[in-house]
């Protein structure tokens, strides 16, 4: 078998690396496109969670890429109970029952999260200008946010109750007079809608 010349091999190698690296711009374009295409389904997850959470504060974290295993974290002021389940595990229903969750609604939420590859839903507290506030936080995992040499990224989408301020570039501000971006969960966010912002994070929770 004829050998490939060295320069061709090198060229192929460099091309592979270049194609495997994606710029942040690619990821950002993906984020807005993904949100536009799935706005309704993502909004549904947010609505389902928002409805269930006040009864008994909780969060759901999917732990594997196949979205088969998840952790249900049930919160009180002092306690956080962490349970790990397989999606179809019978003891999940026992636990939901024990904590008096609306079992059907929670199962619907889990199924919506799996469909959208949403691996974390939570109500997150933050303190802009020392006042307590909260957002509904969704993390999305998607093959388009992975590349060969770069760390995996997660699309984080936050839903506010009120319209938020932003600068000319769409960066979230905690108040219109702020000069610095308003961070939440250690991240700077960009506008998608008046009450919906996003970021690409290296961690999902």
């Amino acid at each position, binding site marked *: 078998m004829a050998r490939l010349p060295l320069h061709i091999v090198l060229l192929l190698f460099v091309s592979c690396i270049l194609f495997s690296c994606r710029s942040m711009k690619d990821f950002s374009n993906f984020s807005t496109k993904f949100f536009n295409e799935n706005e309704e389904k993502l909004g549904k997850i947010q609505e389902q969670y928002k409805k269930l959470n006040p009864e008994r504060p909780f969060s759901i*974290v999917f*732990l*594997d*890429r196949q979205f088969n295993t998840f*952790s249900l974290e049930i*919160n009180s*002021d*002092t*306690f*956080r*109970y*962490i*349970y*790990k389940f397989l999606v179809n595990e019978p*003891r999940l229903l*026992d636990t939901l029952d*024990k904590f008096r969750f609306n079992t059907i609604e929670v199962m619907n939420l889990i199924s919506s999260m799996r469909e959208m590859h949403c691996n974390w839903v939570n109500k997150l*507290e*933050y*303190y802009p200008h*020392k006042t*307590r506030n909260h957002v509904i936080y969704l993390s999305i995992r998607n093959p388009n946010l992975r590349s060969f040499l770069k*760390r*995996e990224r*997660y699309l984080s989408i936050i839903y506010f109750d009120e319209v938020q301020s932003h600068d000319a570039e769409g960066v979230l501000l905690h108040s219109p007079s702020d000069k610095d971006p*308003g*961070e*939440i*969960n*250690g991240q700077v966010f960009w506008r998608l809608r008046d009450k919906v912002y996003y970021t690409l994070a*290296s*961690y*999902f*929770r």
Partner: protein
Amino acid sequence: MNRIHKRFRALVPSILISVSLMGTEWTDSAAFSKRQEALIYISAMSSLPQSEFWPHVDPKEFTKDLEGDIRQPLRIYEGKVTNFCSYAALTYIPFHYDPLGFVQFMFELYKNGKARLGKVNFEPGDEVRNVAGLLKNKGFLDIAPANQVWFLCLADRFKGYLNVFNKQFDPGDENNLCAATNFSKFNRMIRQLFPMKVKAKGFDFLRPAIKDMILYLEEKLQTGTLFMYVNNRKLYKIKDNTASRVDVPTHFLVLLSMTRVDNRYRLTYWDYGRISVQELSASFIRKITFGVTHCTLR
């Protein structure tokens, strides 16, 4: 039914812990002072003037934060994305064994810009004093100026090999290696700050040479305060990319109880400003644990 019964039975220790920790009075006979004494001291400080040493820490907010900490000692929170978890964990000791002594130290530090706790003199520089009260985007820590003062002083005063490349504190360093704590630094801090006898087993990169980890934890829990140095990324599954595969400890927590449920262990521990209850297998506990620090009063 039997399984549910077992689960409820296993919940009993955590309920007892919550009742004892949330009660209005700390009743440990080994404690040097009681919570009530600390609250009386704080109420006598209601007209505290603005400190010239801590320009961004309002005296009323400082006092209110300390009072909140004493009333709810488990609420202390290291802040989002900071490296303050070791400092929050070790604060469990003064809050539970000597709240009055800690409160007196904090007020002295606020009034004079310097104070002594245990064998350690704290006299932070301008960089630390000008940052305290201004930390933001850290969650609950944003509105906890007394905790900001305390954590920043500890990060500034104690140094380990992780801090060797950045020993001088500057704004923003709370999130990076300047504030990080390795296992020996953690144990040194406890030994120097509090009258505790510390027995530590573990290392920063290797798991401790403990023959039966579960038995060791169960035994030590009976006789003192137990801190665990764990791989947080595995415990909470923060991310699932290549970085998480590096098997190193990143987090300190206070283990409060451990009970067997079927073939797993129900761990009740304090971290991130609340008590967490989680069932883990013995092998997983061994896998995530890199250090165990057992503290008893001297």
